[in-house]
């Protein structure tokens, strides 16, 4: 049932934001790491020692590289546990790790290690079983790409969102958590802080990035904004 609280706040398309929103994008380069896991024991070991940029690559960046797929497992570790190790139980648990709940790589790394270690404790025979193919740890080098798209009100924001690339959606909506150190995203933070549209911001932040492609995310944000306008 709709209540006054969960109805979107009326928003004027032309009301000026206190500060504009500058749309950025990001370009990534994949560095090939030195670590190569051929067993789950090695995966656990390298999860401890790999660079932060590797955790970012395999948990965050993969969401962009495979953004059009919403079936299967949502990160590279889970996919490997399933496809190369045939450990479906482990794959499911790793896939359930939601990057939106993490604002630091350190915390995310600890969760991943905990899941693998617990699985190995319960299934010791899987520890040294050789995988069908190795897991190659890679890392992401990210370069921020400013775009000329700027929004000073909600109407311009909607227009900008239509124009920005998929990399831009990923940058603002998914990667932003690590930058902001908040369980939110750049779009929601701007809507709340600069346009006082807290409810709208919350609704956008609740869009499920795991069951939606990045194009779907764009469409859903636009739908929420257009309803509010």
């Amino acid at each position, binding site marked *: 049932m709709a209540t006054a609280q969960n109805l979107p706040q009326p928003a004027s398309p032309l009301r000026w934001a206190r500060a504009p929103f500058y749309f950025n*994008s*990001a*370009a*990534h*380069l*994949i*560095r*090939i790491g*030195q670590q*190569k896991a051929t067993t789950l024991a090695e995966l656990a070991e390298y999860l401890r020692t790999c*660079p*932060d*940029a590797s955790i*970012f690559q395999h948990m*965050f960046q993969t969401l*962009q*590289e*495979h*953004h*059009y*797929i919403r*079936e*299967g497992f949502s990160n590279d570790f889970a*996919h490997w546990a399933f*496809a190369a190790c045939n450990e479906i139980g482990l794959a499911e648990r790793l896939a359930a790790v939601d990057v939106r709940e993490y604002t*630091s*790589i*350190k915390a995310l790394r600890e969760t991943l290690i905990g899941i693998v270690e617990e699985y190995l404790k319960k299934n010791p025979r899987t520890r040294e079983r050789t995988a069908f*193919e*190795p897991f*190659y740890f*890679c890392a*992401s*080098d*990210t*370069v*921020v*790409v*400013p*775009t*000329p798209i700027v929004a000073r009100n909600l109407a311009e924001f909607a227009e900008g969102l239509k*124009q*920005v*690339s*998929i*990399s*831009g959606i990923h940058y603002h909506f998914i*990667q932003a958590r*690590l*930058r902001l150190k908040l369980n939110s995203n750049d779009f929601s933070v701007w809507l709340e802080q600069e346009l006082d549209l807290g409810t709208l911001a919350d609704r956008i932040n609740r869009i499920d990035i795991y069951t939606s492609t990045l194009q779907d995310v764009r469409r859903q944000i636009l739908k929420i904004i257009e309803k509010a306008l």
Partner: protein
Amino acid sequence: MKEKDTKQTPAASSENGGVRTQTVEHTTATEAPTSPPEVPQVERRNPNAPPVPPARERRKYKVSETPPPPPPPPKLNDYEPIIGKAAIDELHFLARHLRGKTVKMVNSTAVGGGVAEILNRLIPLMNELEVPTKWEVITGGNDFFEITKGFHNALHGGEYNVTKEILDLFQMYNEQNRQRMEFAEDLFVIHDPQPVGLIRSKRDRGRWVWRCHIDLSNPHAEVWNFLRPFVEQYDAAIFSSPAFTRQLAIPQYLFYPCIDPLSEKNKTMEETFVQKVCEDFGIDRTRPVLTQISRFDRLKDPVGVIQAYKLAKKYVDCQLVLAGGGATDDPEGAVVLAEVMEAAGDDPDVIILNLPPWSALEINALQQASNIVIQKSLKEGFGLTVTEALWKGKPTIAGAVGGIPTQVIHKLTGILVHSVEGCAYQIRYLLTHPEFAQQLGKNGHEHVKENFLMTTNVRRWLVLFQILLGVVKPARPS
């Protein structure tokens, strides 16, 4: 007037039988009579095997005897309908940071081969982005290229007898090229092992990248130990897959091989052309078509594909097209082709096409006409024929080898198989579950769009150059 001659595959030489083989009618643009190209002779046949049934029906298809002139390279804006305006704008932005910087790329051949194909498209795009980029080709005698061919095979794990004379000759030619060339640019990209010794011209100001297109996972130790000290003088190395790398003291980056969506092999075609090609080759488009595009090479397992087709055909109606080259200029290719013909027997629904290397439009049409594309390789590099099939939105069944699993994510962007039986089952499944097959094709297309297009590689080069020159500091999320 056009001079015509007819070339046939060996088993297509008599009038009866069922397997349909290519009969290519060559046309030349000159008045002068030309000698017909050599017809490959099959020498190795099992004496106990029944005679290969010859072609019952000859198909005529005109393919130019010489490669046609390449079309002009596309402009950046031509890619906008494919990747969007925002992505093009981002390329311009990334390039702006490199204004005033110059690049030289060096490889060992200007025509033929995947590297030349990529550079032919990459260089004009970089120049259009106002990052002046030169392409130079090293020279050498036949002895040099024999050595580099030996190195190439050895780096793939083959046997090679390394002598001091060979190593001296390799270095001598590299030194000759080094003396001949100027190295005034800011960035140097050296492709593959042939020109690797040019690194001796490295000075303080330039940054040097070694782009290795070869799988180095299992190299001949002596050859690799010789090359490695050269490689480790570079500022970075680039590989096509993490599985292709060696442990090196320099940063290694991953650049997937890519296809050009606007090339003749990949551009969208008129349906009328696709239909005409099918008609000329005797393909019935009212019934399912399975296709494997590959040179006639045992590592591509064409006989395994025929076996899978035969198993599947017990349950589902379909035709099989095996199209490729290599049977004309490669003696082993001719032998493999004969084996393929024998395996096909007298089945009129197996269509075997031995095409010249410049049949890009025909290959494109065959892929577009296919219900399923198969690439049942037993060993593979990256497998760009898979990329091409995925780009065309075709449900793809492929061997889980080399770079194929990077492209074919099992049951998501295609199907990976490990056996003839597995391949046969997946053919049956996909033909009887068209919605699932269609979803695979759709995902496969998006996978290529995101990761394996020429424009994605331009973006990677621009980012790499920025990082190497210190123009930007990459963000490291924490």
